[in-house]
């Protein structure tokens, strides 16, 4: 599992590039990661709303939310989510939020 330097800190990523240990994440890393995965920067308040929601869900439930849960509970609609994170919100937001990829079909 490759280690990587993000925002001057070393983090461990799995084979798909997701954080192995979400506690290694810091807020400074989010914009750096966002740029790498194709999320439009600078990150807006709505981006941060989603990122915070993803981390909250992960630490409360052990896994990040699916797109549907994001659309229903984060305060950001499905349409907006796909504008903020163009190529797959659950996946890209998980990258930015330093949590593992959420599993779920819907």
């Amino acid at each position, binding site marked *: 599992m*490759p280690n*990587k330097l993000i925002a001057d800190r070393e983090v461990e*990523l*799995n*084979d*798909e*590039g997701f954080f192995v240990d979400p506690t290694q994440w810091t807020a400074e890393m989010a914009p750096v*990661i966002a740029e*790498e*995965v194709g999320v439009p920067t600078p990150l807006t308040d709505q981006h941060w709303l989603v990122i915070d929601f993803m981390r909250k869900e992960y630490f409360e439930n052990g896994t990040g939310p*699916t*797109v*549907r*849960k994001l*659309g229903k509970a984060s305060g950001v*609609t*499905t*349409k907006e989510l*796909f504008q903020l994170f*163009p*190529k*797959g*919100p*659950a*996946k*890209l937001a998980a*990258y930015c939020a330093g949590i593992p990829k959420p599993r779920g*079909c*819907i």
Partner: protein
Amino acid sequence: MTSATESATAGDTGPEPIEKVSIIVSKGALEDIYPGLIMANGARNEGIEANLFFTFFGMDAIHKQRHDHIKVATVGNPGLHIPTWAGGFPGVSALMTKYMERQIEKLDFPGIAEFVEMISDTGAGLYACQASVDLFGVDRDDLIEQVDDIITVGEFYEMAAGGQIIFT
């Protein structure tokens, strides 16, 4: 500087990711419609471009009067594991449908009408089949507003070019 995804697979190109899927929904039972919708939604979640093409009884999923009344097929459906004669009694399909809908809600999956709307919000294209529209005498107004267009099979093939076609 390598990206988060590139560094993880440096030196290993792996298979080509799928870029676009065009999914045909051709049948009208609940268990026939969900798979196509899940494939489309799943594709969008992975950043894959997706189009849904509703034809024949699949059009019920985008029909204003019908999309809330889609049922489970209980006759001649061996997957249900109930004898065909039992499935044919009045009310059995409605009962089975209610049961399935309860399970679907427990898992917080959306109902078909809400799901189609959600999929449209993800940026997937929704299309109705021209031939089926003619065959069933359906008007554009009978279809939900999220339908992007009514297209022919030739237009579907043009739209599907370069991607994968999934028939359900």
